[in-house]
């Protein structure tokens, strides 16, 4: 028996519950039902989606399975019994390649270094090491690892004397990275962003940067931290005119 396998499964199971449901808004019962269905289908060799396709129109059957999932253990039986041979899997080869290539390439000055140090040390470890570079900006608080990372990047950025457009882009990436290291701290810090650095940007650009950083950062934050973040960051950003997501979609549709 592979060492740790039981423990891993136990941990997997143990983590399912209220927190899992809360994470996505899916009812806890549905999460349990889905997990049971998935494990059961894996054991039986059946395929949940194949069963869904065979059962009839996708919408109706999806709804049917969804209802069953929500009602609990019946999900396993229904999904597994309905399943047959494995259906074709949507290819993500191209996507995967793009994803990896994009990550390998990094995203420029502010994220390039971080890409390489993703797991090289404890979480935040490498970021903390960036603290001395923070002096390049304002020398303000370096107790927060995310802030230190941002300040390091801001300092490097300042040295490169970028255009306003470049500054804007780097600022967004920096603020996003900051959230990785600091979690909830971003909402407070993004408003400060090193005043010396921000002095190069217009007020409108600064607000837009804050909004973009906010929208990206919220994707990094668990609900628990997010709840606390509301209290910290909401007053600053409540009037944000256009979300990052909307801009993202606008670009995708262009």
């Amino acid at each position, binding site marked *: *028996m*592979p060492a740790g*396998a039981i423990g891993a*499964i136990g*941990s997997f*199971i*143990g*983590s399912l519950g209220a*927190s*899992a449901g809360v994470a*996505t*808004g*899916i*009812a*806890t*019962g*549905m*999460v349990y*039902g889905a*997990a*049971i269905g*998935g*494990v059961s289908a894996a*054991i039986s060799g059946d395929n*949940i989606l194949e069963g869904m396709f065979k059962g009839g129109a996708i919408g109706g059957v999806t*709804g049917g*399975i969804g209802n069953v999932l*929500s009602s*609990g253990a019946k999900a396993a039986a229904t999904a597994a019994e309905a399943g047959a041979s494995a259906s074709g*899997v949507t290819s993500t080869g*191209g*996507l995967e390649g*793009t*994803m990896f290539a*994009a990550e390998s390439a990094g*995203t420029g000055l502010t994220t390039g270094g971080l890409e390489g140090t993703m*797991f090289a040390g404890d*979480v*935040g470890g490498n970021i903390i090491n960036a603290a001395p570079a923070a002096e390049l900006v304002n020398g303000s608080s370096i107790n927060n690892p995310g802030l230190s990372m941002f300040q390091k990047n801001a300092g490097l950025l300042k040295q490169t004397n970028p255009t306003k457009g470049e500054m804007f882009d780097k600022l967004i990436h920096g603020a*996003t990275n900051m959230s*990785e290291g*600091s*979690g*909830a*701290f971003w909402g407070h810090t993004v408003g400060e962003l090193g005043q010396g650095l921000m002095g190069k940007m217009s007020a409108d650009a600064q607000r837009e940067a804050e909004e973009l950083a906010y929208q*990206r950062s919220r994707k*990094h934050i*668990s609900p*628990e*931290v997010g*709840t*606390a*973040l509301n*209290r*910290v960051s*909401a007053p600053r950003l409540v009037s944000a005119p*256009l979300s990052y*997501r909307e801009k993202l*979609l606008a670009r*995708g549709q262009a």
Partner: protein
Amino acid sequence: MIEPQVEQEQGNPQQQTFDHLLAKAMKLIYNDKINAQLIKTIKTGEPVQAIGNIVLTVIEKLETSAAKSNKQIPQEMLPDLALSLIAQLVELVNADGEIQIDEKKQSLIFSYAVQEYMKKGIASGKITQEEAQQALESLKQKQTETAPQQAQQAQPVTQPQQVPQQQPTGGLLT
């Protein structure tokens, strides 16, 4: 100033690790170069399967990166991580507007992802059939223990299917 509770949450190592992992995953998903392709892949394929495969790919990528640095992603975080990724992808797709993925389909995506993850584990020998069966029984047991809660939650989904309203974008954290 940061409120005490925020500082406390920041100091939670598990939370930090989870946030770090999710951040890395989101960096992939929200990379300007790939998210349009992500949406296209989901819209042109079977969405449940496509999103499930993307989630598995991202998690596999994270596991590989961690392993290269002699780290291991805590297994207990995988379900939450997967569910969070599913939610993010569904938000993106739903906001696009062409197709809508409701709560029930999200459950189905999770089910599919669990299935594929377990199948790979069984195939690679990381998980034996016996262990998987034990996992199944334990899940059923846990579900039984939380039955009253489930009954309450299951009630609304027996109603006609409704597409959940979009969260307002650009607003507060939800």
